[in-house]
């Protein structure tokens, strides 16, 4: 379980997280939804141990994020791979950092995603780069996968490939995936639990299926309703 206990974070004059409280349960695919600037990336980076709370605490299975790096695979929103490397070289480089790297899975996914080890990262398309980032995240057998906007700016066919890969390799019950996105319609049927975040706070959270039972609404509709009050 990942716990946020009254976590606040300020960047200059901007309050990115405002006493944010949340418990992300283990073994679920979790959607972190909200508009741009809501605090999604800041939250994800905090779990990955890339920035620290000014106040409050983030705990991963009871430990601080910097103690948990081996258990977390993180897909950043930015292009973090060296453009002069080939996919194969970048894989070798990534592999050297993580003991949970599964080389069979890497080769299998490389093929499944129509990529090849010889491709140079600086020369492939945006969609192919997105798939490469996904490949490097999923090739690790980490119990926690963090994905920051994995679908943003990607064409529809590549989005489908990315979602297929996630479903295909998901180890239900044991693996926890947190996906941050503002494109909710794409992941409606992928997420178990949803957290709607805005202005550094969780506005609403719960089980996607229970929301549908209780409200008869899609997650997109719920999000529109939840945020209408705030932005009036």
């Amino acid at each position, binding site marked *: 379980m990942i716990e946020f206990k009254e976590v606040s974070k300020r960047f200059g004059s901007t309050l990115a997280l405002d006493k944010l409280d949340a418990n992300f349960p283990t*073994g*679920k*695919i979790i959607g972190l939804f909200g508009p741009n600037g809501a605090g999604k990336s800041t939250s994800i980076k905090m779990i990955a141990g890339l920035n620290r709370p000014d106040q409050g605490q983030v705990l991963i299975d009871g430990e601080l994020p910097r103690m948990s790096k081996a258990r977390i695979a993180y897909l950043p929103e930015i292009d973090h791979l060296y453009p002069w490397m080939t996919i194969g070289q970048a894989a070798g480089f990534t592999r050297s950092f993580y003991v949970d790297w599964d080389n069979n899975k890497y080769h299998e996914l490389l093929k499944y995603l129509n990529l090849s080890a010889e491709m140079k990262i600086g020369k492939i398309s945006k969609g192919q780069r997105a798939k490469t980032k996904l490949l490097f995240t999923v090739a690790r057998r980490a119990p926690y996968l963090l994905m920051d906007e994995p679908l943003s700016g990607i064409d529809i066919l590549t989005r*489908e490939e990315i*979602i*297929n890969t996630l*479903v*295909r390799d*998901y180890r*239900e*019950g044991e693996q926890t995936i947190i996906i941050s996105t503002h494109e909710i*319609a794409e992941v*409606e*049927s*992928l*997420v*178990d639990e949803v957290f709607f975040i805005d202005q550094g706070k969780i506005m609403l959270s719960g089980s996607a*299926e229970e929301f*549908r*039972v209780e409200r*008869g*609404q*899609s*997650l*997109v*509709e719920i999000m529109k309703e939840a945020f209408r009050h705030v932005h009036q």
Partner: protein
Amino acid sequence: MKFDSSRPIYRQIIDSYKKQLIRGELKTGDKILSQREYAEQARINPNTVQRAYREMEALQMVETQRGQGTFIIAAEPMLTEIKLEMARDVLEYFVGEMKSLGYTCAQMISMLEEEEKEQGGGF
């Protein structure tokens, strides 16, 4: 299969199996997709598929045999019951919508009879 995002997906999975049973497309003893195959083909959360399959097992529609797969075990009189239950759901929806448009029960019946005539004596 296309899902309606405003209704629980696990129920839509169960309903689609119920419909296939009623239409005779699936019969007792038939093997259905594994949970993983289903999740992959429909691109939905494997936990959701698991929930649907568990519920179908509890309803004794299907049975999962370790290492063999999941099989249809539903037979009469359960099929009649399922059919009636789904018909009631459709009816409830229809009546609700018609009422909200201001139609009375008698008007609905006469409209249904007219519709039957138009469609050539029996839908």
